[in-house]
């Protein structure tokens, strides 16, 4: 029984990492940079959610949707103010990366000024503490996380496989110059990629907020673990981000229970180091574009 409980917990925690890791991967495949502020958008959305639902008493679902959209808008502004100005620098990979680290620090301190240092609490939408699934007691919030993530992944898959816009975003990521020759507005595609990835991060932040506390640094640890998940998955693969995220979530939950609770947070990074040594390209790291 405990194994199933832990598995549900691991999948839920892993879903959070998977959502944030998807954000990393989308931006990386589109513009070839790692957005080190990716995790902070989880924090940004969680604070928006507290303001809307706890302070302004908006209905939970409405606050949820608005917060995710606001996280997307924040991501759009982020790329406008942080990515665009440095993207054409020579060896742009380095200036962009440093700019996103700066952006991360800026966001954390901005929200420290806005909301103060005291951790805030976002209640779960569910009243009861646990639900009984045939003798297994699980937190309903964990089930919500898993279900919402699954729906989100299905939606993303539909978007990228079935819509022209989704294909245009992929085309832009694969060959921006040719995409422009086709008439695709690549700057708009990249802005959309940033907005989508930060909205995904925001979604993760709102889902996980009732489990932890809402603090200005909550995004850092989520971001780092999602980063590890992305590397495990191969960093350029959507499938890899999801499987990497779930794997890290399950490993740290089981490791934290059976090996050492104190080192719970270390397991993700142990896995990361092992992967960097033995399989640096991750599980699905074979890039299609390198074959051509």
């Amino acid at each position, binding site marked *: 029984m405990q194994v199933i409980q832990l598995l549900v917990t691991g999948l839920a925690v892993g879903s959070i990492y998977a959502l944030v890791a998807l954000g990393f991967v989308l931006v990386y495949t589109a513009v070839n940079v790692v957005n080190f502020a990716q995790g902070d958008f989880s924090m940004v959305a969680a604070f928006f959610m507290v303001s809307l639902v706890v302070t302004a008493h908006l209905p939970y679902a409405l606050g949820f949707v608005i917060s995710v959209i606001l996280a997307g808008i924040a991501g759009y502004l982020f790329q406008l103010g942080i990515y665009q100005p440095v993207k054409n620098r020579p060896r742009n990979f380095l200036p962009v990366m440093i700019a996103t680290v700066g952006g991360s620090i800026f966001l954390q301190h901005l929200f420290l000024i806005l909301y103060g240092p005291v951790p805030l609490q976002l209640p779960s939408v569910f009243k009861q503490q646990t639900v009984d699934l045939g003798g297994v007691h699980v937190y309903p919030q964990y089930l919500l996380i898993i279900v919402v993530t699954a729906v989100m992944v299905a939606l993303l898959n539909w978007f990228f496989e079935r819509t022209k816009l989704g294909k245009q975003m*992929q085309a832009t990521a694969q060959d921006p110059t040719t995409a422009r020759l086709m008439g695709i507005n690549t700057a708009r595609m990249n802005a959309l990629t940033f907005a989508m990835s930060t909205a995904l991060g925001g979604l993760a932040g709102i889902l996980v907020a009732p489990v932890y506390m809402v603090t200005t640094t909550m995004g850092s640890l989520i971001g780092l673990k999602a980063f590890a998940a992305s590397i495990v998955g191969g960093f350029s693969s959507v499938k890899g981000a999801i499987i990497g995220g779930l794997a890290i979530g399950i490993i740290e939950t089981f490791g934290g229970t059976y090996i050492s609770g104190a080192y719970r947070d270390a397991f993700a990074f142990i896995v990361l180091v092992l992967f960097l040594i033995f399989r640096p390209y991750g599980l699905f790291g074979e890039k299609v574009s390198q074959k051509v």
Partner: protein
Amino acid sequence: MTMLKVDHIESRYGEVVGLHDISLEVNEGEIVALLGVNGAGKSTTLKTISGLLHPTKGTIEYLGERIDRLAPEAIVRKGIVHVPEGRRIFPGLTVRENLLMGTSNRKTTRAEVERGIERVLEIFPDLKRLINQLGWSLSGGQQQMLAIGRGLMANPKILMLDEPSLGLAPVIVKQVFQTIREINEQGVTVLLVEQNASMSLRIAHRAYLLETGRVVRSDTAANLLADDAVRTTLLTAHGRG
């Protein structure tokens, strides 16, 4: 009627001058060839017309309107479609999806896209059985057909082809040139950049000879094909005569 008028343009890659002084005209219904050896400025000319580069001197007019300051995505919306050198198929998209991307220069209905794909498959029947394969898995010849097909999906008024025969087997090269002629006969004006001068002159109406970023000669294809001096400089220079 003159569709495209390139007037004394100079183009640079940073500090390096790629084009010194290029003037040319393309009339409706023509196939115009730009010929010359490697580095003569043929591809740079196409890149400047399609907006990937902006000329540092001179002007480019399309139907009497200046286009030399427009971005590539704005120029392709006007119907000037550049099929770049090296085919540049989107490797991770299928053949069908690559063709769909060709319609990105305008709003399309599903039916319109299907009609376009059907038309391309009529011209390139070989693509039919590859329709759901990923771009990277195609052979060079298949990729070239897809690249031209993708260009046609944009409903071009002027189709600019950069080295469509490069790296293809001789049999395929013949097919590609045959197809270019057919496309032209369907009413598409073609601006063709090629190293294979003899084949190009056989399908072109007129041609411009480029050398180190300048136009050194322009004439009808028939005259150039008959000219011994042209034969020696162009046709034998790279052993394809």
